[in-house]
């Protein structure tokens, strides 16, 4: 008898028992971004932390304006400013212990500086003086990453390796809203959740991936909602509220360190400047939108909170500004010196041992340099692109 002939007597068999592996509700982010400044919760925050955040924000803003000025002077090849996003950058740096690792993207120079990296070293990539101006292991800061989201799986692997070695280390990885569309974002979050790796992902949703706004980037309710599909908690925070970003990231880091696995944090913020100094933001957004966000400035928010509670006076504000000026003057002075590069370094670090092919090319360049340095050489040293 065929199935068709049986049809009158057909009774569907019950499906094998199935239920969702996790209740998604606890993983869901709050409906609105978490805020602390200007709410009752602010009173619970350590005043020293608030003052420290403030000093770092003021310094960070000055760093951004100074770096942008350096592009105009030709001292930096390019600078993607994080003006308006300083609360995210600073909080990301301050929540980490010394043994933890930071995985920045190209816009996160400030996070590296706030973590203690020499500002000039942090700018080597953007200056064109080699790619990474520091030893990542020494500072526990991965190289500034230009491809989008590709640093996220590195953070997962490092955090996983640390846990395998029994080390109490957390990795914090930074990515933008555009980066969440990349495959590496998905793969990193999936690996992190499956391995329960001690890693925290911070998405700085600054509204635009160069010119493409968020509504053309994703149809998700929020970027924090993406966490649920991977089985990790998603948190939504006001990215311009330094105290809130610090609190949410601290919770996530604590959770990761305690073996609770990864968290995806979306900080809602705004890129006040253009994508980089080479971009024209007026082509894709209006002034009024920018002005709305200027009114929600991270420094102003924190300054208001501190002033109203009597934790900061005019003298304190002045002191923070002076410290920032000192940093900027030092940065200017050192960036105005021409870096000395050794052309032979081109071959120094391709492999542990140069291949025979690279040795030949090394000899060729050495001979070319020697010919250039020769004072009596007919080609002379004054002409850069001399013909042959």
């Amino acid at each position: 008898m065929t199935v068709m002939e049986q049809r009158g007597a057909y009774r569907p068999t019950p499906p094998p028992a199935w239920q969702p592996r996790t209740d998604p509700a606890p993983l869901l982010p709050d409906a609105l971004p978490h805020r602390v400044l200007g709410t009752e919760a602010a009173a619970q925050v350590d005043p020293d932390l608030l003052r420290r955040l403030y000093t770092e924000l003021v310094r960070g803003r000055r760093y951004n304006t100074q770096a942008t000025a350096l592009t105009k002077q030709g001292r930096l090849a390019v600078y993607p400013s994080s003006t308006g996003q300083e609360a995210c950058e600073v909080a990301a740096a301050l929540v980490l212990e010394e043994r933890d690792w930071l995985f920045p993207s190209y816009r996160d120079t400030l996070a590296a500086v706030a973590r203690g990296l020499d500002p000039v070293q942090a700018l080597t990539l953007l200056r064109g003086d080699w790619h990474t101006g520091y030893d990542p292991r020494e500072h526990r800061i991965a190289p500034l990453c230009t491809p989008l989201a590709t640093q996220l799986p590195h953070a997962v692997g490092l955090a996983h390796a640390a846990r395998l070695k029994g080390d109490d280390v957390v990795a914090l990885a930074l990515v933008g809203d555009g980066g969440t569309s990349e495959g590496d974002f998905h793969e990193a979050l999936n690996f992190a959740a499956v391995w329960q790796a001690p890693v925290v992902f911070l998405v700085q949703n600054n509204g635009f991936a160069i010119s493409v706004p968020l509504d053309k980037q994703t149809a998700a309710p929020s970027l924090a909602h993406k966490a649920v599909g991977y089985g990790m908690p998603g948190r939504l925070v006001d990215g311009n509220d330094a105290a809130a970003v610090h609190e949410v990231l601290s919770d996530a880091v604590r959770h990761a360190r305690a073996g609770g696995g990864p968290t995806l944090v979306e900080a809602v913020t705004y890129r006040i400047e253009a994508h980089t100094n080479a971009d024209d933001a007026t082509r894709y957004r209006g002034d009024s939108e920018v002005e709305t966000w200027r009114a929600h400035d991270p420094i102003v928010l924190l300054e208001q909170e501190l002033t109203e509670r009597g934790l900061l006076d005019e003298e304190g504000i002045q002191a923070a500004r002076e410290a920032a000026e000192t940093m900027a003057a030092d940065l200017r002075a050192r960036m105005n010196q021409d870096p000395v590069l050794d052309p032979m370094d081109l071959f120094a670090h391709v492999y542990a041992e140069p291949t025979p092919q690279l040795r030949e090319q090394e000899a060729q360049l050495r001979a070319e340099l020697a010919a250039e340095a020769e004072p009596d050489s007919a080609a002379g040293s004054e002409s850069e692109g001399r013909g042959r």
Partner: protein
Amino acid sequence: MTTVALKPATMAQALTRALRDAMAADPSVHVMGEDVGTLGGVFRVTDGLAKEFGEDRCTDTPLAEAGILGTAVGMAMYGLRPVVEMQFDAFAYPAFEQLISHVARMRNRTRGAMPLPLTIRVPYGGGIGGVEHHSDSSEAYYMATPGLHVVTPATVADAYGLLRASIASDDPVVFLEPKRLYWSKDSWNPDEPQSVEPIGRAVVRRPGRSATLITYGPSVPVCLEAAEAARAEGWDLEVVDLRSLVPFDDETVAASVRRTGRAVVVHESGGYGGPGGEIAARVSERCFHHLEAPVLRVAGFDIPYPPPMLERHHLPGVDRILDAVARLQWEAGN
């Protein structure tokens, strides 16, 4: 002194043994990839490693090649020595951004501060009747990326020796495993101490005087067979097995061609933009005055890898190699 009888062993067994020995010798060696744990890999190369060393050291990952390689980068940054498996040649392509943008240049971009000691095992090449996306020869892509070593064994002993050297290397190595040689057997005694072959040295597999066949990986046995067949035609062919595509052993190759005066490069991957063009150019640059004929190439056709029922027409076989050898009786003006 007792003589130990050599037991026949397969290349796959030698690779397993190399992984096991490397893991036993160095606790920082971690094997990872899709199916490498419980199943022991689809080719069984990682068989038994999860059981012996635990799932933390031989890890079944989610199915995601960029994620496998990307997390391995992070693990290497923390001081481990990951050995990742890409399962099949064409499955590695999603991981190319990680490979090219990070793996290959991490040492360089950090000016030596952060080397990445990781090995990427890629079963490659055709001849096993695999369906689409299971038979690519992707070596040219790897060769074109500075910062990577690219090696490929053709014998059971080399499979062991080169894999141990790759894992011990402080630089990333793309370790190309010729799929159709996995079950090829050599007399190789796994109970004897094994030699670890330094990366970057070619070897003369068969000495000869009339011409040199320059080849590697899956084409080595084909070239040896062609050399035997050529004896009937009066040709005494030398066969050079490159073993390492990066770095390239110019010395061994040029010395051979200077002796024989004629050369044919043989490989499975397509000829246009393929390894043979680079090799032929290097030989021409070094041996021009010794050459009696142009350096020829016998390669796969410049087509997407064909379906299994047609692959025998695509893969360079003995006849096609012998045809090329016949063309080496070249006279100016021909």
